[in-house]
């Protein structure tokens, strides 16, 4: 997945699409920005200058789908977090999770979320639930899995048609919803795919590259200032304003 920050307007369509697709319940009363369930969120990063000169960039942030040495997989005491060799997706199995939250402390991208409340839908709203995604209960962790329910449905559809999975069969909800087509999704291992082409562009970068986690989500921006501000040593600036 490659996200073009220059195209992102911060509209939040991806966030809504993600929540609808993945049966994320409406925020419970008392939820704060720090306790909500947002598999995907858009963070606004300002450059710290005062009003007329300020420059902001919107960073859609979700599970970065780290490569093999993911910080979260190895720490889970009971194999409730898995690395899928076939797709490269880091998966979370809510029914296996005991809610120790070790994976959440391990994740440098803060992309994992905990169900602090029991999920509740207003009466009638449960009719809108996506049958391809299970709902989660209180006390377990969850996160973006590149709309795995869609992958399963796509696989079944391909099998019904006796054909292999095609790139167009499966796109995550956020990709579909983005009005500016800022998010490109596909097989990074396929050198001919659009996503590979986008990923090999010199203005792409990954968050916290130095940690060696090898995220499969890339960001790109033609602005060197943006690239610099998102890749530099995280703790060098204190003035930065953050709006989650």
């Amino acid at each position: 997945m490659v996200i073009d920050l220059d195209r992102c307007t911060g509209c939040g369509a991806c966030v809504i699409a993600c929540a609808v697709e993945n049966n994320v319940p409406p925020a419970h009363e008392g939820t704060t920005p720090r306790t909500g369930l947002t598999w995907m969120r858009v963070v606004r990063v300002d450059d710290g200058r005062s009003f007329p000169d300020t420059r902001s960039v919107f960073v859609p942030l979700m599970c970065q789908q780290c490569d093999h040495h993911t910080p979260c997989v190895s720490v889970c005491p009971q194999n409730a977090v898995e690395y899928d060799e076939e797709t490269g997706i880091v998966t979370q199995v809510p029914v296996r999770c005991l809610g120790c939250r070790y994976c959440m402390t391990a994740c440098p991208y803060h992309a994992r979320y905990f169900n602090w409340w029991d999920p509740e839908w207003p009466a009638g709203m449960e009719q809108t639930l996506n049958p391809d995604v299970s709902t989660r209960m209180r006390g377990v962790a969850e996160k973006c899995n590149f709309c795995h329910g869609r992958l399963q449905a796509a696989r079944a559809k391909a099998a019904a048609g006796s054909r292999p999975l095609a790139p167009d069969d499966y796109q995550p909800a956020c990709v579909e919803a983005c009005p500016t087509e800022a998010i490109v999704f596909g097989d990074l291992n396929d050198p001919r795919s659009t996503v590979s082409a986008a990923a090999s562009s010199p203005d792409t970068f990954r968050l916290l590259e130095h940690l060696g986690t090898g995220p499969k989500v890339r960001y790109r921006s033609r602005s060197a200032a943006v690239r610099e501000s998102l890749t530099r040593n995280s703790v060098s600036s204190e003035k930065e304003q953050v709006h989650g």
Partner: protein
Amino acid sequence: MDSSLIPRGLQRTSFPRFLAWVLPWVALLGVGLFAVYLCLAYGLNQTNMDNRFAFGAWIYLDLTVIALGAGAFFTGFLLYILRRKELAAVINSAVVIGFICYSGAVAVLMVDVGQPLRAWFTFWHPNVHSMLTEVTFCITCYLTVLAIEYVPLILKNRKLRKNASMLLFEFQLHKLMVVFAGIGTFLSFFHQGSLGGLYGVLVGRPFAFRPAFGIWPSTFFLFILSAAAAGPSFILLTSWLVSKIARKPLVAPDVYRTLGRISGSILLVYVLLKAVDTLVWINRTAPGLGFQASSFYRYGDFGSWILFAEIVLLGLLPALMLLSSRVAQHTGWLVTAAAMACSGIVLNRFVMTIQTLALPTLPFDAFLSYVPSWQEVATFLAVIAYGVLVYSFSFRYLNLFPQERELRSA
């Protein structure tokens, strides 16, 4: 009233006075249990933890009490394996303290996890690469061992020993205690280490991450050493405290000195290795992950003073004090040094758990602060109340300090 339960030859306060001491703790325990009920019935939204501060006061409490409870395994190791006979004076008390610390920690963990009923999944589907798996397995086994070590103390109660089968079981069990001491040492070694490894392996938290020796990060070994150093100090501290509260000598001064010496020497080794580890981290590990170590100390109240306090003020200083023969002559100074050593370890656990999570990782992250909710604090206090209660009852009805009778008549 309950004099037939009190060990013969020991003087204990009257039952009403004991009740007056116990009741406030029972009340505190009750409040805590109510908080626990809230957390279990309504979920962890009762706490102030959040997605970023996923570990809070409870994990900190767990790491701390388990480090302080290390006195049980280490005293057992010195007494039964290395045959330091003089430590027989505190072994019973050490076992009770160990049991309290570990059972309290496990109890809090059961509240802390989101789905306590699934706790057994870790045994059924263990991920052996996770430090938490190692911790879970070892602590469960070790708590069992501690409970087994506690049993003879209880069976020795004056009323229970009248029953021949209890006495026989106690006698036979006690003869095999060296096996349990050995297993306890083995298990403690691994889980004290794994608790350190818990944070040391977090490559996503450059503040805590340490490179590995073999399969364990350096914090693994530092935690073992620091726990072994804090354990005897804590035993010293509690024995002294109990003797102050009970207003009678419980152990001979030379036992205090022995404990102090043991604690001091291990603490010294620990502080030196910790200093080396910190230097390696500042110069190699942190820059390798793209971070400047000094930048971690620019947030809030977490200045570099914390490093100084941890290593020098509450590390090197108490180590030297505990080793000094002049300090050892004065129980007051010895106790002060032991308290400082324990505080140093408590601070270390605080830095590893709370500071690690408070510091930002992403370039646009904010520094976080977190204040535990009253439910968290009450649960925390309930563990302390539980410990005081278990210890008070044990002290009243069991013979925790074998030297007490002799010291009384001396």
